[in-house]
């Protein structure tokens, strides 16, 4: 059995969003599609599944098990869902039904469930057992860790025996540990003779999965070939650009080279202390997240708090900022941090701006309150390569990368001494991540302010920061 996509074109009001002439998927060989957001790679998954939005016009054919389906006809493929092909959703914690216990929602996908519930439940327990999460059967999704939720979602997607598995950004929001587990699961599906189509902007996942890699850009495929070739020695300039955007390969002026031995730290070890914590501890609902953390942050410091999701990195940051009270220990701020010179960047910048007000109005309030030098806002917009017309839009009408740069501008306008960046790029694709981090670090470099970066990406932590504090959880 194999799957063949022929002459697939998706358009919206005359604009071509996806144009893939020929794509063949074979049993036992993983196919991974990488590319930046907006390149049409998620549309490909939806076009194959038959879940394209109503406003999109599609043409082309998908041949599955010798049967040919017209892409524009969305209903015919419904009966294949779960039995022949399945979609592994992104962010499994959100995709699982919060009101159902795990066993029940996994069992719903079993072929026998609707005729014989007991055998459905038995099948669910069996699948959960082989995935090593038998203990989760009677629990609700919100009590699961990210890695367990990922396995449960995998069980729910594959229990129906679907040979074709489409994974749309499966590693989004997962820490390194959960990501490795995911890779093992996907590998298992491929070696068992399944067809796997993975859509991701995580190049490491593509390397780990092996098989073939397709690089997409502007609705089309720019390069294809074996993973070890495309993702290590690419031939197309765009793929090279994509690879260069991986944090471990950044070569920017602000990246402080620590391998050369002569670490030229601008942070003065004898300088004044901005924030000092003394044996702080914090926990929620009886669970201790961290204890005995003693830290000193001085001007020019670059500190990363790295660790798996749910380990308390953000909580530690909020304690440093005195947005949260520690359970034990003390946090001292220098006098100079008063007056708004301590700023925070959020993981989702859309919720950090007033949602119904044009961004310009929100920034005007900051300018009125803090009175930066005249023209500072305009020059910052130019430095971040942002158009001034963006200021007339509300946060929901601006892309994530642009909005994060606007929130960097908002923080820089008040001339901060310390910026706390909470996963500022975890929702952005590689190229946008590099662009956004560059904008942030150029400003940090110029102003000499201290930076505390929270991230689950080890490579990013080590590239940006001088000190990495591992938060174990």
């Amino acid at each position, binding site marked *: 059995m194999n799957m063949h996509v022929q002459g697939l074109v998706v358009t919206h009001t005359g604009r071509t969003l996806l144009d893939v002439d020929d794509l063949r998927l074979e049993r036992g060989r993983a196919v991974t599609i990488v590319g930046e957001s907006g390149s049409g790679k998620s549309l490909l998954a939806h076009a194959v599944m038959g879940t394209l939005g109503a406003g999109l016009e599609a043409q082309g054919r998908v041949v599955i098990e010798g049967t040919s389906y017209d892409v524009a006809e969305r209903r015919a493929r419904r009966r294949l869902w779960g039995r022949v092909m399945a979609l592994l959703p992104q962010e499994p914690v959100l995709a699982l039904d919060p009101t159902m216990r795990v066993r029940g929602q996994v069992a719903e996908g079993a072929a026998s469930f609707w005729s014989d519930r007991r055998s459905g439940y038995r099948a669910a327990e069996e699948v959960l057992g082989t995935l090593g999460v038998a203990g989760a059967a009677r629990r609700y999704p919100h009590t699961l860790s990210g890695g367990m939720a990922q396995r449960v979602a995998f069980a729910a997607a594959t229990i129906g025996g679907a040979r074709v598995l489409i994974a749309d950004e499966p590693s989004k929001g997962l820490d390194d540990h959960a990501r490795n587990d995911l890779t093992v699961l996907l590998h298992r599906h491929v070696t068992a003779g399944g067809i796997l189509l993975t859509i991701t902007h995580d190049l490491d996942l593509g390397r780990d999965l092996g098989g073939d890699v397709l690089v997409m850009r502007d609705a089309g495929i720019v390069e294809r070939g074996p993973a070890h070739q495309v993702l290590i020695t690419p031939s197309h300039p765009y793929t090279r650009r994509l690879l260069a955007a991986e944090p471990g390969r950044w070569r920017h002026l602000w990246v402080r080279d620590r391998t050369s031995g002569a670490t030229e730290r601008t942070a003065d070890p004898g300088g004044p202390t901005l924030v000092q914590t003394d044996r702080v501890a914090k926990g929620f609902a009886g669970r201790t997240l961290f204890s005995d953390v003693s830290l000193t942050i001085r001007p020019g410091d670059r500190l990363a708090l790295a660790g798996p999701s749910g380990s308390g990195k953000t909580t530690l940051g909020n304690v440093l900022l005195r947005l949260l009270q520690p359970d034990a220990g003390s946090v001292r701020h220098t006098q100079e941090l008063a007056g708004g010179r301590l700023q925070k960047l959020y993981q989702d910048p859309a919720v950090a701006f007033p*949602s119904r007000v044009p961004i310009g109005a929100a920034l005007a309030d900051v300018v009125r309150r803090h009175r930066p030098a005249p023209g500072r806002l305009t020059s910052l917009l130019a430095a971040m390569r942002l158009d001034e017309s963006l200021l007339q*839009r509300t946060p929901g009408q601006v892309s994530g990368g642009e909005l994060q740069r606007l929130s960097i501008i908002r923080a820089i306008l008040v001339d901060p001494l310390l910026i706390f960046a909470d996963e500022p790029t975890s929702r952005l694709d590689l190229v946008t991540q590099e662009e956004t981090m560059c904008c942030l670090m150029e400003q940090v470099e110029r102003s000499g302010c201290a930076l505390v970066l929270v991230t689950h990406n080890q490579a990013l932590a080590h590239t940006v920061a001088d000190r990495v504090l591992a938060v174990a959880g």
Partner: protein
Amino acid sequence: MSTATTTVPAHWPRWQRLRRLSPTQRCAAAALVLLGLFAVAGAWVWPDPAAQDLSRFLEPPSLAEPLGRDHLGRSVAGRLASATRLSLATAVACVATAVVAGALAGVLAAWRGGIVDTVLHGLSEAFVALPALLVVLLVSAMSGGGLWTLYAGLALAQWVEYFRVVRARSALVLSGPAVEAAGLLQLGPLHVLRRHLWPDLRPLLTTMATFGVGTSVLALSTLGFVGVGIAPPTPELGLMITEAFPYYDEAPWMSLAPALVLATVLVGLLGLRGKESVS
């Protein structure tokens, strides 16, 4: 993938947004404006709605008197205009008072928390436990009737619902990251009110107030209908229906006209409400 949306950009001037009203909303607005014009113009055409002329007892409709005359020879159209004016003005005043009081108390409770929140929330709980009409009846019984007690009673019965919605919504907004960021930027409470709370609460409050006006008009006429509202001879929609009932066979238009006005007000207000934007 975002499909084409027809939402109006936030920076468009207000009058341009008005042009985006749906046909239903236009019809509803037109009906309400006509009703308002009738109520206001009635004051000039029929200056004294209480003037009696017993010789014109139950006169049928004519060009000069489009709704005829009632059992005391009073102009029905004149009384209807006066009653509509009274109902709409009282209802709008009640709702305005309830919105301002409820919203201020709600924001205060959500912002300050602690004892302020406990006291205000407890008070609202007590009002929720009583049926709204009972509150109005209690207030008018305590101070002997009259328009002012009706107004005070209705406003008192209605502020609770605004308080509870505003309190719940404000607590959500105030605990969000956007307000946390505003705190780190030290933008002050005025910024939070103007940029965070008000834009978020405004669509909620307008929808609720639209319904509130309808409820108030209906409550006033219910009280008039059962004879505990505004005392005769002041014309009032519910009272007019009661007074006209004995003559329903000879002059059905006398009781149907006030009912039609009530229906127009309610349908108009319902039709006016736009699609609520969900954030």
